[in-house]
């Protein structure tokens, strides 16, 4: 077999850290080389922070797992230098169909907005996603960045030492210890680090099992998301069919609670289920089968002194809506620039508490949405099922019921309304979507796209007005981007000016809006920068 996910891509190699008497101190240690851990490490390396990534494995994700990646994470990945390989390989989709029993009740088009570099969604197997992140990590390594990935390094113990954390790591050649100024735990929903620190992870368990199968077939199905409620081939349950690259199709079948997982996973039981769905004459091969249950929960706090949790380790949602990996990347997008400023002594350590506030807000939004989808897809009472079926029956005949059909509310970027880092909106008539706290929408420029020009540092974006080309406040260098109406794409005006004649935006290194005004005002800008780094 030569599947990418069966190949050790970062096999164990002895590190010099294992041959020293005193533990080596690292600036940052990331635990877990999944999508979030790799994203965090790349971001750190790009910011010039020395980082070691440890993982108890040496391969990319086993099976496709997370397959649906939204625009915002793709934009984040582009800032990390690997957005385009994902899109080039991924399957772009906009269409979907919803079936109830034997009938198609309606179809939809996501109608993505024009003027964005990245599509609304792509489907891509998690193993490719991780492979492209690994490629980027290797590229940074080659360029001389201080980034190191250690395979088959399993964390056994972590200890909070106040101004650092000690990490005991097991390897095929025995254990060793390192010290970390900052430890970022991206070790997944079952996070061993969370358990080692005895931290809570409370929420709601959904009593249901889903069979997921990756099927390789030459099929005539279109590039659409098909969702079935109560189909004849899976009576009383739900089903999902979604296309991935390489002729691989993802099939999710709800199985209910009271099942024998090991039995259900056997090919002799899986294949008849798939034949019932696909028809007897469709030839297919099984690439990967798994059964999952899920929970909607989060840690009370994501930051515990110098151990910071991100991704599934910090919060878990049901898969409906693709809010898992997509939100995890928004976590590290939010965290790393703050950590950089704290490490450089430019911001107070308390800036990291805003990571907690902003990303807990994001997690709550995701948990709310995915819990509601789950309640619709798998009703837990007769009355809940009654209303669900009524919505589906009505949706076939009346348009009004279609927005009530909930087969997953797809991931959209979180707006950090109410964050202490925001300066109150001072752009009268400015569009709601670009208010302080929101992530910048992309828009076409004369050359390229807006988001290519934003991020990694603070930027002052001036539209139809002047702002200084350079500004330094509290040791922070703020770049500038000046855009005038003769070169303005209507999409840019619509997304950033609205009713206003001109605008100045202060944009954070994670491409979120910190403040906006009609004209440049030096005192106000300086105050907004201080506020955005936790100094006011």
């Amino acid at each position, binding site marked *: 077999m030569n599947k990418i996910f069966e190949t050790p891509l970062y096999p164990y190699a002895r590190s010099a850290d294992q041959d020293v008497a005193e533990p080596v101190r690292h600036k940052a240690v990331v635990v877990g080389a999944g999508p979030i851990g790799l994203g965090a490490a790349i971001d750190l390396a790009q910011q010039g922070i020395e980082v070691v990534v440890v993982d108890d494995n040496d391969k990319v994700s086993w099976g496709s797992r997370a397959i649906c990646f939204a625009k915002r994470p793709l934009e984040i990945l582009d800032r990390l230098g690997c957005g385009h390989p994902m899109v080039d390989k991924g399957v772009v989709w906009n269409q979907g169909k919803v079936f109830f029993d034997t009938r198609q009740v309606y179809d939809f088009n996501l109608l993505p907005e024009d003027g964005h570099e990245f599509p609304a969604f792509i489907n891509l197997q998690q193993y490719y996603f991780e492979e492209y992140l690994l490629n980027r990590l290797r590229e940074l390594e080659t360029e001389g960045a201080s980034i190191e990935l250690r395979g088959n390094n399993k964390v056994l113990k972590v200890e909070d030492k106040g101004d650092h954390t000690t990490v005991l790591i097991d390897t095929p050649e025995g254990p060793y210890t390192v010290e970390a100024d900052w430890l970022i735990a991206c070790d997944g929903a079952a996070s061993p680090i969370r358990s080692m620190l005895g931290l809570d992870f409370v929420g709601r368990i959904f009593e249901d099992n889903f069979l997921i199968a990756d099927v390789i077939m030459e099929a005539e199905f279109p590039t659409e998301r098909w969702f079935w409620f109560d189909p004849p081939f899976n009576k009383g349950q739900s089903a999902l069919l979604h296309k991935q690259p390489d002729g691989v199709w993802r099939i999710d079948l709800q199985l209910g609670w009271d099942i024998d997982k090991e039995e259900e996973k056997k090919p002799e039981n899986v294949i008849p289920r798939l034949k019932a769905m696909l028809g007897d004459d469709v030839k297919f091969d099984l690439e990967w089968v798994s059964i999952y249950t899920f929970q909607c929960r989060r840690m009370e706090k994501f930051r515990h002194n110098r151990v910071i949790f991100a991704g599934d380790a910090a919060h878990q949602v049901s898969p409906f809506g693709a809010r898992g990996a997509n939100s995890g990347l928004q976590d590290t997008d939010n965290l790393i620039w703050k950590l950089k400023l704290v490490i450089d002594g430019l911001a107070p350590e308390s800036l990291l508490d805003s990571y907690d506030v902003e990303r807990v807000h994001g997690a709550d939004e995701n948990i709310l949405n995915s819990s509601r989808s789950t309640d619709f897809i798998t009703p837990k009472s007769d009355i809940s099922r*009654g*209303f669900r*079926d*009524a*919505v589906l*029956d*009505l949706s076939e005949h*009346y348009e*009004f*019921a279609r927005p*009530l059909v909930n087969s997953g509310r797809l991931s959209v970027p979180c707006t950090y309304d109410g964050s202490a880092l925001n300066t109150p909106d001072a752009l009268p008539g400015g569009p709601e979507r670009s208010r302080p706290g929101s992530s910048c929408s992309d828009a076409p420029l004369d050359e390229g796209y807006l988001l290519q020009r934003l991020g990694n540092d603070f930027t002052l974006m001036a539209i139809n007005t002047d702002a200084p080309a350079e500004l330094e406040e509290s040791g922070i260098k703020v770049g500038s981007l000046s855009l005038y109406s003769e070169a303005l794409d209507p999409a840019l005006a619509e997304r950033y000016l609205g009713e206003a004649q001109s605008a100045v935006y202060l944009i954070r290194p994670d491409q979120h809006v910190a403040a906006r005004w009609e004209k440049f005002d030096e005192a106000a800008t300086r105050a907004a920068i201080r506020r955005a780094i936790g100094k006011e």
Partner: protein
Amino acid sequence: MSLTLTPNIANADDFYAELLAIHEGRSKAESDALNARLILILANHIGDRAVLREALAAASQVANEET
């Protein structure tokens, strides 16, 4: 606008008879489904979330008093 809780249907007896008539000859399950569809259609017609919240509360209030 707020929720109307005073008589508002002309020829109320006729309406009531029509409401019962659509349930005639249906099983309990069919009638339950029909009621659910009816609630959703009426709710969409009202649309105003504040009025809907008042309606949900008014209906719940009576149930709470009964138990």
